[in-house]
Every structure is written in structure tokens, then in C-alpha cells.
């Protein structure tokens, strides 16, 4: 089986192109430590992704505040740096220097551990996310399953956080978060499977590759056109999964003060804050990958495909993020039982119907020669 190229291959290719790879490789081979080179390259990749995630989170928090402001006829952050661009940095510095409070009756270890689990689990989603042609940390053959599985860790850690805080609001927020995540992971998975039926592979790279090309010469072969219902279901499920308005029960401020992180302060709170925005980016990336053609787009001459694909991916992801923020500025929050009602009684049957429709399409239309 041919594996798709990933970022590791890309780095080696770049080193080769500059002509230094053999020298470095030779150096490590002389020492008999070829594996050290592999580790170094992997660490570089990880570092790039982590730095990218942090910068994105900072930018997103700024963007969200600006966006919020624009909708509401105001300016948003202005004083700190040009157009308030340094605002997230100031926030970060401040949160770094805040007192770290652990309530007396809290479960000390779990209370400390929970924010780290949330943050790490969100970062793990970045592994199989194709940012561009061969710009992927690792092309897992079970990529989609991996993403769904990893996102299921988040509610566990939220439950830990809510339970360990020994606060009634935290506990209720945590219980709500778990109920919500469980009921939305199922339609999420079923809709994703409908796409897998078309592709025949769980690998995210394969999913993107299957969306290259055009029907009739101008409609891109994105799954949103084959699966409009699936896309809407997936989008709703993703917003619920992220816990954003209209589904932000875990921290619904007017009801539960600050939900599961009511008792958190300082850096631990910052971890939740970072995880929230990193999650927003990751989930938007997944939506783009599955339904909006990933990094595909018309090629531009003279520019390497790695760069153009990255740009296409970013544009699409930010469009999805924009939509999520736009929706947040507009609608109120639904009630928790209405949310569960929507999840179990409407979305799951529709998702199953959508799966059936996909199977029908694959069997009778696609095999008949459209693809």
C-alpha cells in the first residue's frame, strides 16, 4: 500500500533540495544514531504545530472580539497595540502572573490535571489534519476514527474538572457537557461515515484527494454538493461539540456562572481558554477537510502546491470560523433538554437517512460511472 506523503517527507525533501540532507544524514550515520535524526525532525514538526496552534489561538481570540465588536457597532480592542492586536499577548502575560487558587475542598490532583488533558486532547486532533498537500503530521489510515475518538476525551476531562471543583455550578456544567457531547458524537460519526462510504478510506488525505477535480468542469467535487444534508448535520453537531452559542451549555454564563471552569483561575483557566479556540480551529479544519474539499483549489503557476494548498485550506477554515462567530453573535442559547431532543430525535434519524442516501448514491450512481 502506498502511504501518502506527510510533513516528515516534506522536510526531508526540502533538505534534499537545499542539498544538506545527505551531509546531515551522513553525520548521524557515522555516529550510528540515525534514529536521533528522525526524532529531531519529528520534534521540529511538533514544535511548529504547537507554535502554530498558540499563534492561531491568540489571533482567533482577537478576531472573535473584533468580530463581536463590528456586529455591535463598536470598535473592540483599540488601545493595546495597533488596532488592539497585542491584546491577546497582554491577556497571556496577565494570566501568567495570576494567583493560582485551588479551593480547599477540591480534589487537588484531578483539579490540576483536568485543564492539561483538555489542552493536550485538543492538540492531538491536529495530527491527522491535512493543512495542505503533504502538509500533514501523520497520515493515519484511521484518521477520521482517530479524530472522533480523540474528541471524545474532552468531555471526560470536563467532567473531571467539574467534579473536582466541588462546586454545584461546575458539576451541573460538567454533567451538561457530557450529555451534550455524547448525544452529538453519534450523529457526527454517522455523517462522517456517509462520506467514508464515498471515499472508501478513513484517511483524511484520501478524503481530500477524492474531492479533487470538477463535475461538468466547474462544480468542484466537494462532498457538500453530494451531501448537503450531511453537511448541515455535521456543522450543527460540530458547533455543539465545540460548545459554542447556541449550544454553550458547559459554560452558559447566565445560568451557571462560568460552568465547569467556575473555580479555575490563572494559568489553568488560560488552558481552557486556549483549548476552546484551538478546538474551534481544529473542528473547522475537519469540516473543511470532509465537506469543503480540504486544501484543494485551482493551481496557481510558479507557486509550489504546498503553499497554495495551505492558503486554500486557511481561507476555507477561516470562512467556517467566521460563520461560527457570526452565528454566535446572532442567536440565543437553546435549552439543554431541547438540545438533547434535537440531538437524539431529529439529528440521529436524519443522519441515518443521510447514510442510506449515500449508500444508494454509491451503489447506483457513482459506480455507474460518474466518478
Amino acid at each position, binding site marked *: 500500500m502506498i502511504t501518502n506523503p506527510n510533513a516528515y517527507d516534506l522536510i526531508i525533501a526540502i533538505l534534499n533540495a537545499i542539498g544538506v540532507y545527505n551531509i546531515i544524514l551522513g553525520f548521524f550515520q557515522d555516529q550510528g544514531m540515525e534514529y536521533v535524526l528522525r526524532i529531531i525532525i519529528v520534534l521540529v514538526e511538533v514544535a511548529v504545530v504547537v507554535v502554530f496552534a498558540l499563534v492561531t489561538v491568540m489571533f482567533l481570540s482577537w478576531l472573535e472580539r473584533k468580530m463581536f465588536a463590528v456586529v455591535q457597532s463598536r470598535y473592540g480592542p483599540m488601545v493595546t497595540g495597533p488596532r488592539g492586536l497585542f491584546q491577546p499577548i497582554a491577556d497571556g502575560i496577565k494570566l501568567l502572573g495570576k494567583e493560582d487558587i485551588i479551593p480547599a475542598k477540591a480534589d487537588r490532583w484531578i483539579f490540576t490535571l483536568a485543564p492539561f488533558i483538555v489542552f493536550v486532547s485538543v492538540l492531538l486532533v491536529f495530527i491527522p489534519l491535512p493543512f495542505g498537500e503533504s502538509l500533514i503530521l501523520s497520515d493515519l489510515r484511521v484518521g477520521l476514527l482517530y479524530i472522533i475518538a480523540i474528541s471524545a476525551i474532552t468531555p471526560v476531562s470536563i467532567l473531571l474538572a467539574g467534579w473536582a471543583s466541588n462546586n454545584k455550578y461546575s458539576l451541573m456544567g460538567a454533567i451538561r457537557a457530557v450529555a451534550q457531547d455524547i448525544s452529538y458524537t453519534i450523529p457526527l460519526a454517522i455523517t462522517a461515515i456517509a462520506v467514508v462510504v464515498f471515499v472508501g478510506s478513513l484517511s483524511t488525505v484520501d478524503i481530500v484527494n477524492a474531492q479533487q477535480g470538477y463535475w461538468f468542469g466547474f462544480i468542484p467535487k466537494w462532498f457538500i454538493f453530494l451531501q448537503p444534508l450531511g453537511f448541515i448535520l455535521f456543522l450543527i453537531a460540530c458547533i455543539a461539540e465545540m460548545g459554542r452559542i447556541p449550544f454553550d451549555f458547559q459554560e452558559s454564563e447566565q445560568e451557571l456562572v462560568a460552568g465547569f471552569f467556575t473555580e479555575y483561575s490563572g494559568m489553568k483557566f488560560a488552558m481552557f481558554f486556549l483549548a476552546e479556540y484551538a478546538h474551534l480551529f481544529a473542528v473547522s479544519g475537519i469540516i473543511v477537510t470532509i465537506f469543503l474539499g480540504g486544501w484543494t483549489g485551482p493551481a496557481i503557476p510558479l507557486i509550489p502546491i504546498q503553499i497554495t494548498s495551505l492558503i486554500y485550506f486557511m481561507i476555507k477554515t477561516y470562512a467556517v470560523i467566521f460563520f461560527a462567530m457570526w452565528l454566535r*453573535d446572532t442567536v440565543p442559547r437553546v435549552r439543554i433538554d431541547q438540545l438533547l431532543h434535537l440531538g437524539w430525535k431529529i439529528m440521529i434519524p436524519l443522519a441515518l437517512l443521510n447514510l442510506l442516501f449515500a449508500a444508494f448514491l454509491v451503489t447506483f450512481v457513482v459506480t455507474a460511472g460518474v466518478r
Partner: protein
Amino acid sequence: MIGIIKGLIVTMKHILKIGNRKTVTVQYPYERMKVAPRFRGRHAVDEDACIGCGICETTCPNSTITIVKYGTRWFPEFNLGMCLFCGLCVDACPMNALKMTGDYELADYSRESLIYGPERILFKKEVSK
């Protein structure tokens, strides 16, 4: 779904600033709103007109005003930390000596500094010739 889309359109109109939906923020302190002439801010006492009669002191609902000696004459002293800014003292002044200015930048670091004695509120009316 239709209702939500309608709402989304309204917010999009604000994003794109269609119609009269522009940004309304006044960026204090870079720009300031005009303060209305009748605005009830910090007090000011006309040095020449005030006779220190104490009518403002009795009119004040909550004893913000005390009459103190300043130099050789008596003037009111305002504890702005306590003031209602209701303007009853201005209405009651028989000499038209008291007025309220448009000055609102009064925040300070201690409670004592909010007591505005005659040295901070006296002004001399410019005599027009």
C-alpha cells in the same frame, strides 16, 4: 431556520455597515462627546458673588455642603464623594453664585481628595466690557 437566517442577515448588515448602521463608538479620550450646557458636573462658585449665606447647605438633601472659612470670607466646600449631583443647591442660590460645570474627570486615589474646598471650585467671572 428562516428566522435564524433573517437574524443572520441583520447582523451581516451591521458587519457590512449597510444603511445607517455605522460604528457609533466615541473614542474617549481621543475624542469626546459634547457635554450638554445643562450638564450637572463639578460645582463652581463665583468668587465675587458668593456671600456664604449657607442656603445651599440647608437645601442639600444629604449634607454634602459645609460652609468653611477661606481667607477672610466664607465659602461652601463640597464633598463630591457624597454628592447626589441633583442641582438643588444651584437652584436655591440667591446670588446666582453657584453653578455646575461640565467637568466630569474627577476620579482620584483617595476619599479625602474628593472633598473640593474653595481653592478648587472658586472662579472669577470674566467681566465683559
